[in-house]
């Protein structure tokens, strides 16, 4: 019987062949905590489990990215607690304010790799599927158990296969593909399941991160792209990890990339997706380019391509938050940042920023934003009366120029 990528990875970790539906306990290669959840993880581990030391400080990563820098005394105290814990436990993979969004940092630092099991306290930990890892988001209790024991329990998921053919037209990106998939499957279309993307070997690591990240918005447990191209060159791919022609998929969804157009998820549903060109006249107050979905160099470059020689429309504020300090440095070195600044953008500290609505870039009552993030839940970015539209960096940049949600192909 053939195995899906999830079955291969979990079988390898379990030391025996497992199939969808099996309940297994497996060692984790890395367990990651972020600033907003780690205080709870520490409390569960110490106060409820009664465990003082983590199982292996080198298999734990802690990243301060959600509210970074701290916004008030409470967050400052919580982050101080996390910082103290990392020092006491000898956790080398500790990244403080400004290093970047956890999922980007994990990939840059090589803390997720092909064939590994990587869990994280942030729901978008499916992102590690970009490098062929089984990446899975979990809550404080699960991460605390992993920090204490080095293991986690998993029910091996069924897999939905997205099979792409063709290539993107100009102005269409991985974000548009992922929004198309949201519409096709629905916001709970892959709940408890893994998603595999096939036929996207030409995509960069950054674009794969966009796809893997957004599988969380399908409810998925993991979203995995078979390592190939840039990923196969940069990471060591184990022999045993490869697409098995006899793998059993619960469902296969075919998509022709040539037929895709720039898409937008309409507030407040991630699966209410329409072509940007058909949305009608929707003014925007804030444009946000960044996050674990779309805050990488290729995203910033795409925005700069559209904004070069143009200005952000009067009355619109455009926030750009590079996904990491590395992205920020690269965008500075190649001139991307200068183009964005000349166009009128504001640059924020690498981290989650406006995406989670807890500091910088909070939306007020009645305001409208277009964001490159992954979620547009009501109240996500601030006021429950604000509207959040989701699109690609190209769509966001084009919308910044016109002050209306705009199909970026007008500017290419």
């Amino acid at each position, binding site marked *: 019987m053939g195995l899906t990528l999830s079955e291969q990875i979990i079988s390898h970790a379990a030391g025996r062949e497992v199939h969808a539906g099996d309940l297994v306990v497996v060692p984790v290669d890395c367990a990651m905590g972020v600033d907003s959840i780690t205080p709870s993880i520490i409390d569960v581990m110490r106060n409820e489990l009664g465990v003082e030391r983590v199982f292996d400080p080198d298999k734990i990563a802690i990243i301060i990215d959600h509210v970074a820098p701290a916004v*008030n005394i409470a*967050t400052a*105290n919580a982050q101080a607690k996390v910082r103290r814990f990392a020092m006491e436990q000898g956790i080398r993979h500790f990244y403080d304010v400004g290093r970047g969004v956890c999922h980007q940092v994990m990939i840059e630092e090589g803390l997720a790799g092909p064939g590994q099991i990587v869990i994280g306290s942030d729901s978008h930990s499916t992102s590690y599927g970009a490098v062929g890892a089984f990446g899975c988001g*979990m809550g404080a*209790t699960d991460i605390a*158990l992993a920090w204490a024991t080095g293991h986690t329990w998993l029910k091996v998921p069924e897999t939905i296969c997205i099979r792409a053919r063709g290539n993107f037209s100009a102005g269409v990106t991985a974000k548009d593909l992922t929004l198309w998939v949201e519409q096709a499957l629905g916001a709970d279309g892959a*709940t408890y399941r893994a998603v595999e993307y096939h036929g996207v070997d030409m995509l960069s690591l950054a674009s794969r991160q966009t796809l893997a990240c957004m599988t969380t918005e399908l409810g998925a447990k993991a979203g995995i792209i078979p390592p190939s191209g840039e990923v196969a060159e940069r990471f060591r791919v184990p022999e045993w990890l490869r697409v098995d022609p006899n793998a059993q998929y619960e469902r296969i969804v075919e998509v022709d990339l040539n037929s895709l157009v720039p898409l937008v998820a309409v507030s407040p549903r991630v699966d209410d997706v329409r072509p940007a060109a058909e949305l009608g006249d929707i003014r925007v107050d804030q444009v946000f380019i960044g996050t674990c979905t779309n805050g990488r160099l290729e995203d910033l470059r795409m925005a700069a391509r559209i904004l070069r020689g143009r200005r952000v429309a009067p009355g619109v504020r455009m926030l750009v938050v590079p996904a990491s300090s590395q992205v920020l440095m690269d965008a500075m070195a190649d001139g991307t940042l200068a183009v964005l600044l000349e166009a009128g953008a504001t640059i924020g500290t690498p981290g989650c920023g406006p995406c989670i609505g807890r500091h910088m870039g909070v939306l007020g009552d009645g305001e409208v934003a277009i964001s490159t993030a992954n979620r547009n839940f*009501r109240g996500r970015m601030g006021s429950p009366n604000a509207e959040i539209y989701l699109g690609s960096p190209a769509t966001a940049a084009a919308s910044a120029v016109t002050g209306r949600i705009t199909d970026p192909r007008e500017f290419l």
Partner: protein
Amino acid sequence: MARVWLFGEDVDTDQIVPGRYAPYMTSEEELPKHAFIEARPEFAREVRPGDIIVAGANFGCGSSREYAPKALKLCGVGAIIAPGFARIFFRNALNLGIPLFETDLTGVLRDGQEVTLDMERYVVVTDAGQEYPLKPPPDFVREIWEAGSTVAYFRRYGRLPGQRAREQGGE
């Protein structure tokens, strides 16, 4: 008797507890007061221990924040019944020992209706005596419920739920 609190589809973790009320921002004591603070402001004031949430599909979608189900547990919510749950929420609620049933009762139970949850037979009995069966939980789920939480399970058995299933040949 328990009261039914009826909700629609796609109730996300921000509706359950908005991020700005995270325990590290306020305090754990304050947490239950913020349950559904915008989506249903009367919930935290009026909910009684044992009350049941009956919701549409994809309950708990969104963030990994465990304090969302924890707020419901601290409010005394006796069970959540929905056709399906977001997977991290499912795990978090299970870890905390909140009974979840994957059954759709949104079309048959009314908001505010008085019901009894029979955890022996896995049925909901209405004030009119009508019975609605619940999809029984898998064995490992019931074992966690019986222990009280996954932490309690781990402390009792010294191992995680799947290891027990393996040793018992339960796969």
